[in-house]
């Protein structure tokens, strides 16, 4: 399997947020989805950096939407998951699951 088909943790988080949001996946929404689900606040620029990389790897596509007044007249960019993205997410998950098999570990790191 060629290198680069696995996803980084942050990339997985972003991709899953896009998958959960479906039609409504744009920057701020992704940010809030991640914050709601994981309790961590990430920077918008990091989200775009990740999505830019994923788009170059053809795992997502994007399109520019309509501007709204509460955005200061700026347009949204909507992202949607591509088959390659779905495949990559599954592969990453099964790789991790396979590796978790038989590992007994206290989540607080106390062995």
């Amino acid at each position, binding site marked *: 399997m060629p290198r680069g088909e696995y996803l980084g943790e942050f990339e997985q988080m972003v991709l899953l947020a896009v998958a959960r949001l479906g039609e409504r996946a*744009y920057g701020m929404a992704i940010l809030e989805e991640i914050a709601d689900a994981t309790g961590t606040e990430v920077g*918008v*620029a990091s989200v775009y950096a990740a999505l830019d990389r994923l788009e170059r790897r053809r795992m997502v596509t994007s399109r520019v939407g309509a501007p709204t007044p509460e955005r200061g007249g700026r347009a949204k960019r909507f992202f949607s998951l591509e088959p390659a993205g779905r495949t990559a997410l599954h592969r990453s998950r099964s790789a991790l699951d396979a590796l978790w098999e038989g590992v007994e570990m206290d989540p607080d790191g106390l062995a």
Partner: protein
Amino acid sequence: MKARSHPEPPRWWRLLLEATVPARYRDEHVGDLAEGFSSRAGADPAAARRWYRRQVLRSFPGALRLRYQTRNDHSNERGGSMETIGQDLRYGLRGLWKSPGFAIVATMTLAIAIGVNASIFSLVSAVVFADLPMRDSETVALVRGTNAELGIDQGSVSPADYMDLVERSESFESLSALTETEWVLTGEDAPIRVSGLQTTAGLMETWRLPPILGRGFVEGEDRYGAPHVAMLTHGFWQSRHSGRPDVLGETIRLDGVEHTIVGVASPTLEFASFARAQVITPLILNRSEPNRSARYLFVAGRLDPGISQEMATREVRSIGESLAREYPVENTGWGLWSAPVMESLINEDGSTILLLLQLAVGMVILIACANVANMLLARATVRAREIAVRSALGAGRSRLVRQLLTESLVISLAAATLGLGLAMVLNEALIWISAGTEDAFLMAEFDARVLGFTLLVSLVAPLLFGLVPALRASAAGPRAALRDGRSGDGGRVGKRARGALVTTQVSLALTLMILASLLTRTVMNLQNRPLGFDPQGLVTLSVRLPEAVYDEGEERRVFFAQAREAIAGAVGSQVEMTSVIPAAGVGSRRSFVVEGREVIEGRAPPSGLVVRVSAGYFDLIGLPVVAGRGFTDADGPESFPVAAVSRSIADRYWPEDDPVGRRLRISGEEDWIQVVGVVADVRSVSDSEEGAPNIYRPHSQASAEDMYLVTRTPAGPGVMAGPLRQAIWSVDAGQPVGEVQTMERAQFESEASRYALLTLFVTFAVFALLMAAIGIYGVMAYSVVQRRAEIGLRMALGAEGGTVRWMVVAQGARMLAWGIVIGLLAALALSRLLGNLVFGISAVDPLTFVGVPLILCCVGLMANILPTLRATRMDPATTLRVE
């Protein structure tokens, strides 16, 4: 949805964000944060602002990452690769090609400005960065003679004072002295005059300037009776001996004496006026006849390790003070002073002039940039539609700005190339105007430093004149520009920007014009001082007898008597002679004692310039004898020594009574001299005095080797040169004959560097005035075009032409008035610098400070009214229909 008006995120943070995020994700990114902000602002505006700031700060790493990821995208909005630069260049060239009028005017404007800058910078660079002839120059001090009363702070030192200094001072490892001189070189070819230096034996060591061939002079070679030795300067060795290394041991005949060549000096020595030197011989200092009032040595010392420049200055000063006490007759008022070589080689007036010049050319380039910026602003408006289309088709703002800047750079580089050519022509012209008398003009060359400076100017200038128009042109979004295509004038901000540019131009031009006018009036005042004699048709011929051949006064007298006779026979008119060309040459300043007048402690003794003349000289040049008598043939070597003094000497030292019949004694000489007459003043070559303080001696009693033969003839010097030379050679075939020139030419040359400076300033000022006028005209013409609909409407509604005209003129007049106020203030501030340079007027001369702004006002209003007239003559119907 909350209220219709949405709270704005903090403005500066938003701008910061826009600047960091790459264009590709800018809109969505800024929009996301705006949305996040507005959803939080409803509950707690302060918390929302905190959140926004945190997000902006957090964006930096991600934004950098995005920029890195998008660096190679070949979309229209970014790049940096050679391909897009080539595209920009092609686009810029095409744009210029399509509007050749703009391209030519802008390029020429900048070319002139860059040209004068390169030219002046080459002067400044030659003077400021000149390689000093001394190594390790921080431990070299120059010792100078000073005389506060005579205003001398960079004077020379007398040999006797120098020898005492060497004996007494403890600050210096070594001291050395030199003086400039001339010889007649005879040998295989026709006799020629060579200039050179006489130096003490240790000079090359003190200066740490080892000869490149052979050796320097050694101790003992600078005494009487030592074998005659000489060194060649590098330039002379190259040109006359073609750089042969076997020149050592050969002899050259200087003033009829064989000198053995022992070495060739380093080319570094050829600095400023030393650059003219060809031969160097040992300087022979004679202890037995110390004449302290003849000051002609250039003294430099190498500081002892551990001695600071300040310590040396203190010691030298105190030695000077004690010498003045010990030799009151010759040294009262004179002091010694030392300073680091760097400081003392640049004289103060010279550096003020250089500073002013640099300021002036700096203003010229600013004015030119302002003008080109103005043209670009106007052009941007015309091109607003084109730019809007490009932006609508997806060109990012940075790309647009870069394209517009590339166009500016093309103009600037073309202008720099033209400007360099212009600068070379200008430097040649300066050398020509100054008749080659200014060292700085001769030293100036277009080296790497000047080229670098020009390149820098041409790279920075586009930022000055191109950036603002480019930013403004690209600022308007495509929607606004397209919708409002024709009257896209850039709005109020644009108008204000252009107004500020014109105001700047006017103030710079005014400052420059005032400086130029003060300088012009100074030169005119200097010119208008009465000459004191009639120069019409006077021709002079310089003769310098070699001392070694004509060392007795009698031999010189015989030579000159025969020469005068031969010349009189050849040209058929009276021939007289003088040691100093009036109003052009400088005699040697000597101090003297007035009989019956106490030497006043602490005051400089009387001093004057000794001029030796033949008996009929006053008569020939038309210099009236105002009291007593002139010289006659009866004033011979055997009769009582006599002198005639100029009126300024008489007024100064015999203010109460008649000097005729009184006596004076020139210091260092033994005889008392009787004053037999007072002659009118001739103009002084010094800027600070009206008449030259001359003491005339008859040549028959006080002969000199260097004389000018003078005759009055209607034929020009070109016609006279041949017969004059033949006449001299018929007396002594081994005597080189100097230049034959008219008295008027000699005077011109003595003032030539002043004319060169004046020419420069006036050229700059006229150029600045022209630029400012063009600037005002451009802005007004443009503004009238912009407002023609409004004007047409007003006219159609029945407004008087006069009222409308006034309304438009007032707009330009306001810019003009501001410019004049600012310019006057700047000129007032600068006039402090001019205090020492102006003559005959005050540095805040009212006529200048009122007259020059008036001229500028007239020109400015003309440039303002012309386009206004055109506007009000338009048919209202036409202008309205265009809308």
